[in-house]
């Protein structure tokens, strides 16, 4: 290990800040967070930022949903809008459990506790008011939301970041997901259940996972999971376990070069990838999986563990749900909320002051935590500008970066920058100096040239820093 880094670890960041604060009372900029991810389930940053003196007075924003998008929106509305912008965050869960990195619970290298973050710093550092509860109705005319306990909250602008819910699919119900065949696509108890099921597998057993048609949350995530599970089974159980990946899409949806390499070389003989499957049926009791292959031939496989990543939709968008009742689910198949990507205001109810961010919205960018963080900043910036009688930034830029573990010690990455195209009002991937068209073709995201341990180490820094920017 690098000696300098070792020294840096021994002298903790807090000590450094302490020395500096003692010796030089002013002029201190906080030090860089050290490069290791210490995996502690908290968000105790030692620096605080002053709220902007933006000039917003007497405005109320209610943020619904305390995930990656909602937490970032709440923080940045206060940071950029100042103390005259009241922010109330509505969320039923006491702590946030990150879905990012949760595949590493499946091979035993992380605990669910290491993925948990409190939202306390949003209140203590930025003055976000928090309400524990769930929304049951949005009332656009009255500009209020109603919670399950009948609490009514008034807003000038409403930011909805409700995330996704999962369909009953393939013959399974929500109780099957909770108790027998977990999707574990929202980290939590199902992640632990799936980990326990994988750990109980024996050499020769088969793990079957299914991938829904796009759009789904975290495009590389299912392929990453297949790799992590295959790597674990090879090392912990022996050479005869199999991971069967049944993809309802016609091809790998992200990092195609990386995952083709991973499936055909790194995990050759363990992972079998079948794209273009249909008619998946899963028996939660027998763990038998039936499907129709791309040649239209019916197939059946006996699994030990089944991991159905069920199709998802914006929370509340199912018929009768609160998002649907407010008329906000105007995306494809009524599953998502379409938005104006300059402000994330709903296009179903323009002028209503209702914004939808994160995985629930349809904005042309991937459904993923890093992207949700930036959507939230664009939305927060637009709201502050609108409160000051301005207009949203006419040329917003967003970005995505994500690291994918391929084994217990190696990873790849994928990154993209998205530029706004005013001709069709869409966010588009840009490269080569911010250009969205390269030699007549759309620019594409960049994936890592190699799968290696440096990327794995960087992944820890990325996760820790992303969570810090979101929660602390």
């Amino acid at each position: 290990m690098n000696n300098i880094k070792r020294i840096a670890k021994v002298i903790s960041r807090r000590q450094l800040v302490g020395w500096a604060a003692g010796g030089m009372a002013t002029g201190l900029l906080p030090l860089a967070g050290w490069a290791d991810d210490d995996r502690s389930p908290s968000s105790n940053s030692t620096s605080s930022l002053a709220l902007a003196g933006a000039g917003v007075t007497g405005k109320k924003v209610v943020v619904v949903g305390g995930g990656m998008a909602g937490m970032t929106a709440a923080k940045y509305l206060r940071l950029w809008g100042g103390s005259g912008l009241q922010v109330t965050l509505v969320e039923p869960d006491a702590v946030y459990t990150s879905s990012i990195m949760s595949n590493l619970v499946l091979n035993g290298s992380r605990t669910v506790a290491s993925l948990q973050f409190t939202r306390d710093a949003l209140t203590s550092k930025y003055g976000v008011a928090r309400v524990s509860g769930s929304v049951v109705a949005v009332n656009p005319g009255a500009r209020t939301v109603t919670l399950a306990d009948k609490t009514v909250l008034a807003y000038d602008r409403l930011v909805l970041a409700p995330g996704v819910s999962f369909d009953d699919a393939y013959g399974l119900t929500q109780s099957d997901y909770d108790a027998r065949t977990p999707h574990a696509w929202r980290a939590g108890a199902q992640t632990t259940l799936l980990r326990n099921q994988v750990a109980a597998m024996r050499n020769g057993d088969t793990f079957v996972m299914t991938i829904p048609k796009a759009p789904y949350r975290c495009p590389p995530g299912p392929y990453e999971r297949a790799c992590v599970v295959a790597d674990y089974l090879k090392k912990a159980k022996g050479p005869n376990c199999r991971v069967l990946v049944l993809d309802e899409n016609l091809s790998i949806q992200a990092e195609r070069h990386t995952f083709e390499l991973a499936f055909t070389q790194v995990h050759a003989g363990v992972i079998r990838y079948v794209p273009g499957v249909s008619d998946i049926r899963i028996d939660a009791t027998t763990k038998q999986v039936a499907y129709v292959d791309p040649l239209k031939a019916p197939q059946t496989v006996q699994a030990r563990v089944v991991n159905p990543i069920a199709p998802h939709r914006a929370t509340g968008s199912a018929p009768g749900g609160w998002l649907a009742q407010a008329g906000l689910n105007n995306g494809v198949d009524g599953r998502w909320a379409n938005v104006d990507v300059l402000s994330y205001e709903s296009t179903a109810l323009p002028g209503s002051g209702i914004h939808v961010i994160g995985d629930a919205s349809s904005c042309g960018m991937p459904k993923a935590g890093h992207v949700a963080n930036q959507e939230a900043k664009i939305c927060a910036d637009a709201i502050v500008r609108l409160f000051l009688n301005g207009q949203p930034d006419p040329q917003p830029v967003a970005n995505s970066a994500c690291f994918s573990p391929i084994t217990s010690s190696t990873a790849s990455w994928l990154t993209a920058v998205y530029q706004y195209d005013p001709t069709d009002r869409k966010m588009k991937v840009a490269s080569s100096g911010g250009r969205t068209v390269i030699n007549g073709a759309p620019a594409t995201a960049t994936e890592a040239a190699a799968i290696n341990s440096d990327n794995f180490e960087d992944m820890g820094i990325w996760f820790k820093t992303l969570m810090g920017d979101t929660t602390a």
Partner: protein
Amino acid sequence: MSLQRRPRRPFTLAPLGALAIVLSLAACGGGDPTGAEAQATASSTELASGRSTSTALMAQPTNTEGRLLASNCFQCHGTLGTGGFEEIRGKSANELLEFQSKPAARDIMAAHAQGYTPEQLGKIAAYLKQ
């Protein structure tokens, strides 16, 4: 552990050396007397656990042009560019522009920087330099 670190992190300097550089950047960067340096105050917070932690209250740049653009950096470099892979607050635009000629697939930061126009990179640097 035999893993060799790539020599690309400016902040794998000795900690006190790094501190000196941070302070010198703060002292000469921006030239805005109402900026971060002048408004920064230090306070001490007693945590519920009984541990004592020093907290520095850092002001935000006063010119907000480039703020939303620069916020794209914060997921990997910390809010206001103060940490993560590398502290970037106070750095010059040249360092950012250098990434435009590096091979994208071998360096995630190069791939990332190439998604912005040179003008946007200039605005990001100007914001972070305040």
